[in-house]
């Protein structure tokens, strides 16, 4: 009996020691781990706090700046050098190569806690190369409207910027709700032809453009398609006779741009396409061009608001998407609002009458 | 008359021909013999300007051929290469019709077609006139190439080893055709030959080349001597004279140092 008590006491003591020991170790390193789910759907263990970052996508970089965490960024993708005025503080950080294929050697040398890339780029190589160096790879897209809010919250948790993340998601939520609310009263959805970056390539289900169109209260004429970026014939557009044409251009880095001409000439080109003068959108002047900056990425909400205003001008009369953009850049990105992102800025007068 | 004067030619580092001079009269068949690499083929190529000689001149009836247009030259000199690559299909008739190219415009006229038909008939190629050249036997191919050169209606004919790879009958046929044509049309021919017996049997004169230079030349019986063949080819032979043509029977090769000592 006594023996039993001793044994039990000893094991209890041992257990206590074990627990406190673990506590001491955890305290000594000051490290706690969290588990997050990234854009590929897998869960990743992250040891907090995260103090050193390499960011391979400019979308993620923009969100990081919105979370006031740009000081943690050691390395960036080389592409941001093309838009130095948008990245006044980050343009001089170590460049580690392209978003598709960065230099793992440079990254290893920078020795970050985590590296952020897109879900599909760079390839799985990145994990193979960097995990042996004790670097955690996280894949977050930030360019899909559907998952944007979730990803912002995830990033907030990783960086310990939950409050900033909450502010950003609240702002997104507020504007999304506003759009949805207004949409409830609209009568019907206009037919919309969306052209992606390449001529006569539209955006079908599965593409960001299709999603945005639906969100903004339009009916994508390519809704019944089975591939996201199919080639189509000009005749099909003519046959569908959309009310509105939206052209997304690969023209990006529009922050530094002041001239409307490039966007205008894209629009003029569309209007001048053979036989397209028979399309309602062209006849009514409802042909809009949008820059890549607000077409996808963290600012897609601004693009979507533009779309909503173009689709339903009467219901969004009091809303100027440019103001939204200004608010976003000044409040969250802490840079001056400038640049040219859409053409035409104003809804042509004729259409309201036509409609 | 075709005169070759002090002809010299070099490939990058090797001098292939040195100071070669030959005169060829109409009605003559001249064979150029010599071991591999002696410069036989190069000599023919220089004459027809497939390669450009470094030195010397070639005159046709006193006219410098280097001043002649390629097309004009093609009307004077016909050339039968050793082999003709055939990556793409071509009928025998078309292959022979090519020989008329120096004369005809885009569309062959009636005369061109008749000449070709006549040649095919006389050379016993009628039955295969519309067959693919590539499907012919070696002997037939050689005859077609010969027909092409005849269709060219040249005064001088250059043939690069016309009998190599042919069976006995075709060898004889081809050689007969050449000498017959030369006699009939008053042409002259230069043949690069490996077969010394055929060369002596059908040639009026023989030029023996060694190392790019003319070693000796003259009537077959003067050139085809055991001494000459020993020093040029390094082969011991015995010569029999039969019907005034020397007949060469090779016996054994001789070690090269010995040849040098002898020569």
């Amino acid at each position, binding site marked *: 009996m006594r023996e039993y008590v001793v044994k039990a006491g000893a094991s209890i003591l041992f257990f206590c020691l074990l627990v406190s020991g673990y506590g001491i170790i955890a305290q000594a390193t000051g490290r706690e781990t969290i588990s997050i789910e990234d854009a590929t759907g897998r869960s990743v263990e992250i040891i907090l706090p995260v103090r050193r970052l390499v960011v391979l996508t400019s979308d993620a970089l923009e969100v990081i700046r919105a979370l006031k965490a740009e000081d943690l960024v050691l390395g960036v993708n080389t592409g941001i050098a093309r838009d130095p005025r948008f990245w006044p503080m980050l343009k001089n950080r170590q460049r580690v190569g392209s978003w598709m294929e960065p230099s793992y050697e440079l990254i290893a040398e920078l020795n970050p806690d985590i590296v952020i890339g897109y879900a599909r780029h760079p390839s799985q190589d990145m994990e193979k190369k960097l995990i042996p160096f004790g670097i955690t790879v996280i894949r977050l897209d930030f360019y899909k409207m559907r998952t944007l809010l979730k990803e912002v919250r995830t990033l907030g948790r990783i960086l310990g910027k939950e409050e900033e993340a909450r502010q950003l998601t609240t702002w997104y939520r507020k504007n999304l709700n506003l759009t949805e609310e207004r949409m409830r009263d609209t009568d019907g959805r206009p037919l919309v032809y969306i052209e992606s970056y390449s001529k006569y390539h539209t955006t079908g289900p599965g593409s960001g453009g299709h999603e945005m169109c639906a969100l903004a209260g339009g009916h994508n004429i390519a809704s019944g398609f089975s591939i996201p970026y199919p080639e189509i014939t000009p005749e099909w557009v*003519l046959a569908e006779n959309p009310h509105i044409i939206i052209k997304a251009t*690969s023209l990006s880095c529009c922050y530094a741009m002041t001239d409307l001409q490039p966007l205008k000439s894209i629009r003029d080109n569309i209007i001048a396409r053979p036989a397209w003068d028979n399309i309602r959108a062209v006849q009514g002047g409802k042909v809009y061009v949008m820059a890549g900056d607000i077409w996808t990425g963290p600012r897609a909400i601004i693009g979507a608001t533009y779309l909503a205003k173009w689709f339903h001008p009467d219901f969004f009369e009091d809303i100027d998407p440019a103001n939204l953009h200004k608010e976003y850049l000044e409040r969250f990105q802490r840079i001056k609002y400038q640049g040219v992102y859409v053409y035409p800025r104003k809804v042509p007068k004729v259409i309201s009458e036509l409609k | 008359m075709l005169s070759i004067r002090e002809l010299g030619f070099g490939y990058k580092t090797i001098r292939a021909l040195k100071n070669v001079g030959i005169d060829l009269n109409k009605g003559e068949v001249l064979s150029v013999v010599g071991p591999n690499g002696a410069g036989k083929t190069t000599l023919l190529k220089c004459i027809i300007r497939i390669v450009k000689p470094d030195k010397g001149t070639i005159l046709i009836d006193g006219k410098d051929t280097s001043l002649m247009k390629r097309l004009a030259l093609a009307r004077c000199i016909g050339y039968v290469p050793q082999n003709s690559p055939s990556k793409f299909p071509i009928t025998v008739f078309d292959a022979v019709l090519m*020989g008329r190219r120096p004369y005809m415009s885009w569309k062959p006229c009636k005369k061109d077609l008749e000449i070709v038909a006549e040649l095919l008939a006389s050379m016993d190629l009628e039955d295969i006139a*519309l067959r693919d050249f590539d499907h012919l036997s070696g002997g037939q191919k050689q005859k077609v190439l010969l027909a092409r050169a005849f269709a060219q209606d040249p005064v001088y004919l250059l043939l690069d080893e016309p009998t190599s790879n042919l069976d006995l009958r075709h060898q004889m046929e081809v050689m007969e055709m050449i000498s017959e044509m030369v006699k009939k049309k008053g042409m002259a021919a230069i043949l690069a030959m490996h077969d010394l017996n055929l060369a002596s049997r059908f040639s009026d004169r023989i030029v023996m080349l060694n190392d790019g230079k003319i070693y000796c030349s003259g009537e077959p019986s003067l050139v085809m001597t055991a001494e000459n063949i020993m020093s040029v080819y390094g082969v011991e032979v015995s010569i029999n004279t039969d019907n005034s043509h020397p007949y060469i029977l090779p016996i054994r090769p001789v070690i090269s140092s010995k040849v040098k000592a002898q020569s």
Partner: protein
Amino acid sequence: MEDICQQYKSFTGKKVTFMILLTVAVFGVALIAISQGPSSVGFKDSFAALFRDAGLAHAIVWKLRFPRIVMAVLVGCGLALAGTVFQSILRNPLASPYTLGIAASAGFGAVMAIVFGAGLYSEYLIAGNAFFFALVSSLLILGIARLKGSTVETMVLAGIAIMFLFSSLSSLLQYMGTMEEVHEIVFWFFGSLSKVGWKEIGIASAMILVPIPILWKWSWDLNLLAAGDESAKALGVNVTRIRMLGVVLASLITAGAICFTGVIGFIGLVSPHITRMVVGGDHRFLLPASALVGAVLVLTADTLGRTLWAPQVIPVGIVTSFIGVPFFFYLLMKKTREYW
């Protein structure tokens, strides 16, 4: 003897018949093509609209369907013809308009315009640049041939080197490009006929049609080149000149064919072979017949591409291989010759 002449004439007659049949086929497929489309303009309407100004149908037929058909025919002719010429002057049955690196260099031009021309959105910039670089590659080949001799081997090797040079340059630019630009580049390499209107046809036809009579006039020289440089020279052909100019003209045709439409593969390789199986190697017949075969192939491929999965279009560059390969295999099996 009379007999041979007669045989030869009927042999020639067969070739001419084949060409007439091909011409009929081009018109036949064109008639089907002009009646196909996603709009309600059907078979009857489209023919009525072809000759009568009937509003929208007229616009659809004349501005959308007709130019597409004309361009398909032009591109098909051009690529097939260029392929035939490259095969004979390089004496290589594996040659195609793209053998000497033209597709790679034109592609590089297009990629460059897409990546660096961001501020100057224009199809003409892309097309112009593609065209310019297509010619740069052929000039590079000529330069190398001048220095090193214009033999077949030199040119093919130089072409391969140039192809690698330009495709790595393209890769470099793609590597530097954004996701959007990479997307656009991929589509350019698929090839598409959607982008062409009458203006593009005007420019392309000048580049494709002008060299054709010159090349056709050289038929005998090309025949002789196929029989070997030595025979050709001996029969009075200026081999160097024909080969050099041939490269320039065939490159011009290729550049004209691909600068507006992107790379459409396979046509230039396979049309000459298909044609040779029927009409033989005489370029007087081979050139026009092969151009017609190319036209039928591209037109058929494009019509299928835009009707099979309508209104989504399967890029013509993809369909050409789908319809060309089985047909090609069939002929390959049927024929006795080693290759084709």
